[in-house]
């Protein structure tokens, strides 16, 4: 099988970027990725972009807009959407398209401009990722869906609010040195537990924020990597994607996410790696409970022991999880997060070598994409 590498990464600052438009942040991320790859830009043969919802800005057809603004016409473009996993899906589509033999160099990106829409409209738009007819129409929010999972995890496994709070505490601590992060200040467990309740048992500081941001990577086949004389390619070792029931009430359990389990199995098998081999993991902590679910479902510990894993600081000692701040502290522009995760894995690998995994969840788990990257595919 062909090998594919990430050869350039770029992102905007994540935050409430009132003065920036969707087109402007998409362009900035793309240009930075092109510069980082050290290429011209004209070598790019296709563009995949993740973007969750046109309801935030009224603008659909973002992939064509981004190509236009970047002077990349007439390359083919596709917007990929699987809710909050849209960017990882764009990454995986770019990967499959490179494997197809039809392209050598592709840009995969993600962008979301959430702050053009205000107030409760944002929450309604986000519920488009769940089941609008049978969850959204009763007034459930996304925080509510994860709260329902959290309550059940507490019930079945004795997970505590303190353990969930520690997820946020760790992610805020890690973001202090991340120049792109929305929140670069530490918080304490008490801060989390004293913050307003959004959907019990989840507090404000259990929840990732509303964020504008864009991220892009340049990907190339091995032949192109050689031709371009790229010095620091980071290789895709394994990739997996799976779906699960859209509504929580259609699942057999609320304390595991089947799509993560299946996608991870595919990625581990393709890469011939196991959870123990992973040095860095970017996991989808849209709500603190989801980092605990991810730790379990990705196989870093047994089901039910994720809270303890966090409490014992194994997220820093056994494996570095969300070492740049996670969705909680970096911010979560939904359609951009999956590529931002890949970028942080790439940065870690460029700096320190090793193997990294990125897990990006769509909705309350109806989609999961898992990618494993490393400094060397021959290992």
């Amino acid at each position, binding site marked *: 099988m062909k090998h594919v590498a990430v050869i350039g990464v770029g992102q905007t600052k994540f935050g409430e970027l009132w003065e920036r438009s969707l087109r402007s942040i998409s362009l900035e991320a793309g240009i930075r990725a092109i510069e980082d790859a050290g290429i011209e830009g004209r070598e790019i043969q296709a563009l995949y972009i993740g973007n969750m919802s046109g309801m935030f800005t009224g603008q659909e057809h973002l992939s064509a807009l981004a190509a236009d603004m970047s002077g990349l016409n007439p390359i083919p473009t596709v917007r990929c959407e699987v809710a909050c996993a849209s960017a990882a899906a764009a990454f995986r589509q770019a990967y499959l398209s490179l494997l197809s033999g039809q392209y050598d160099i592709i840009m995969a990106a993600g962008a979301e401009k959430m702050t053009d829409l205000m107030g409760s409209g944002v929450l309604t738009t986000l519920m488009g990722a769940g089941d609008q007819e049978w969850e959204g129409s009763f007034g459930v929010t996304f925080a509510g869906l994860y709260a329902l999972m959290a309550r059940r995890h507490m019930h079945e496994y004795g997970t505590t609010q303190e353990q969930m709070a520690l997820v946020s505490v760790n992610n805020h601590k890690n973001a202090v040195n991340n120049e792109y992060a929305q929140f670069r200040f530490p918080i304490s467990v008490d801060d989390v537990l004293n913050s307003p309740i959004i959907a019990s048992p989840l507090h404000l500081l259990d929840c990732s924020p509303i964020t504008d941001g864009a991220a892009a990577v340049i990907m190339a086949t091995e032949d192109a990597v050689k031709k371009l004389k790229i010095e620091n390619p980071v290789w895709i070792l394994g990739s997996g994607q799976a779906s699960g029931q859209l509504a929580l009430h259609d*699942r057999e359990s609320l304390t595991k996410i089947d799509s993560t389990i299946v996608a991870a199995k595919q990625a581990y098998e393709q890469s011939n790696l196991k959870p123990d081999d992973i040095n860095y993991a970017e996991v989808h902590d849209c709500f603190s409970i989801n980092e605990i679910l991810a730790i379990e479902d990705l196989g870093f510990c047994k089901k039910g022991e994720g809270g303890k894993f966090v409490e014992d600081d194994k997220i820093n000692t056994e494996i570095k999880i969300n070492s740049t701040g996670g969705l909680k502290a970096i911010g979560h522009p939904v359609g951009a997060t999956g590529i931002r995760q890949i970028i942080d894995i790439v940065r870690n690998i460029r700096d320190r070598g090793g193997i990294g995994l990125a897990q990006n969840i769509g909705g309350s788990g109806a989609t999961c994409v898992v990618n494993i990257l490393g400094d060397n595919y021959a290992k």
Partner: protein
Amino acid sequence: MPNKSSIPLSWRLNKSIYRLVGNKCKRCGTFFFPSRDICPKCRRKGDIEEVVFSGEGEVYSYTMINVAPKGFEQQTPYLIGIIKLKEGPLITGQIVRPNNNIEIGKKVYAVFRKLTEDSKSGIIKYGFKFKIKD
């Protein structure tokens, strides 16, 4: 946000939401609420028939929502539950606020209530909520 004010949508869902009509697969015996056009297990071999649910069940999980989406801002805080119906399926819905503490496992029954009022279109949506058996 058409889901809040779509007349065709409300009309389509009314039967299920007013009378707790779901269905079941006669082949494998699985009950579905909301109803499914095909049984995900038996797929095209399945045999679907309509079922009216009793509305009886127990709390499987719950959350108190303090920050609401459009159309629900006036109702906060409100309780959302996932209810395990006695026929088998889980179902999402609001729980009428109880006098006592709510807990996983408490018995509930369905009642008919106003769900939301869409100020823009003037549609008032009715449907089931769950009430704790005290």
